[in-house]
């Protein structure tokens, strides 16, 4: 599936949780869903955002791992932690700007979305992208998404001074080069 990329479009998400359940059916992490389906502001709106791992070019989770357990393979996919190495210290959970890694208390290991590595590495689409009815999660060629959608894909994120480029694209309004995330600002909004 050369040229296929992963696109996340929060504006298309209808909150059906198909991706959450499809993810849990994946062979490599049976029963455990790696998708974060976030409600933006549950009191005022039904809007939801599905979050898969963005697979950063310079993954912060792997940089902070004291046990050297998180590895990025040559195809740009940041893998789940290696079971023999992970010490479940939660450093990656705290460091990830997108809040993706989960520490599983049962096996005492961090697990996260690995873009269905068993599927995508042999040319099949990730579980979540196959079931998403509104294609908020889409695994399609880059030229196709540019042709079919009004929103433009971007993979540049700004968290204050940290600039993060990722392998997974976020669909942003046209004319927006990078997505800036001001976490403190959002926290302020919610309090007010």
């Amino acid at each position: 599936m050369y040229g296929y990329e992963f696109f996340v479009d929060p504006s298309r998400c209808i909150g059906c949780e198909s991706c959450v359940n499809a993810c849990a059916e994946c062979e490599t992490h049976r029963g455990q869903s790696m998708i974060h389906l976030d409600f933006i502001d549950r009191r005022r709106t039904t809007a939801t955002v599905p979050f898969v791992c963005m697979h950063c070019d310079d993954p912060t989770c792997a940089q902070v791992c004291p046990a050297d357990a998180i590895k990025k393979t040559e195809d740009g996919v940041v893998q789940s932690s290696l079971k023999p190495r992970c010490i479940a210290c939660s450093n990656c959970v705290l460091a990830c700007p997108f809040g993706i890694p989960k520490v599983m208390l049962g096996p005492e290991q961090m697990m996260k979305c690995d873009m269905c590595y068993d599927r995508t590495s042999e040319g099949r689409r990730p579980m979540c992208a196959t079931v998403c009815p509104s294609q908020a999660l889409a695994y399609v060629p880059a030229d196709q998404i540019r042709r079919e959608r009004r929103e433009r894909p971007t993979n540049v994120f700004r968290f204050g001074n940290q600039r993060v480029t990722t392998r997974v694209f976020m669909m942003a309004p046209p004319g927006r080069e990078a997505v800036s995330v001001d976490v403190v600002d959002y926290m302020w909004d919610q309090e007010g």
Partner: protein
Amino acid sequence: MLWKEEFSVHAAEERYVTRRQFGKFLVLTSLGMLAGNLWILARSLWHREPRLPARQVVGAGELPVGGVRVFRYPGPNDPCLLLRTAEESYVAYSQKCTHLSCAVYPATDGKRLECPCHEGYFSLEDGRVLQGPPPRPLPRILLERRDGGLWAVGVDPGTRES
């Protein structure tokens, strides 16, 4: 930074070893081995046997022939056995078995020293191993007669062939 190269985030880089890296590893470990061997050589050249203080073995005269007595030499935590083999003949050995430091005592036949832990036996004449797991002979305490008393004057570890 070197540690970032060695513990790379990228799976392929982590396993990759360059020829230069491997050469460096070989040279550095060889140098380390050389330095260690030189240090051992220098130590053995300059090493001197420590001179132990002479200490009187109290109560040697009262010991019957064939009798045994425990005394401490050279320190208070080094138990030793004094054996009177004849009227004017004494021998003394460290009481710690050279295998696992159990206390040795004379065997019932009176001709050997026995370690009960693993049935090691030592000769009464020179402390050599007769049987069992001990790897070295018992260290022998050197005795001397001074002013009518018996004095311990040193320890022969018994490991050197001479």
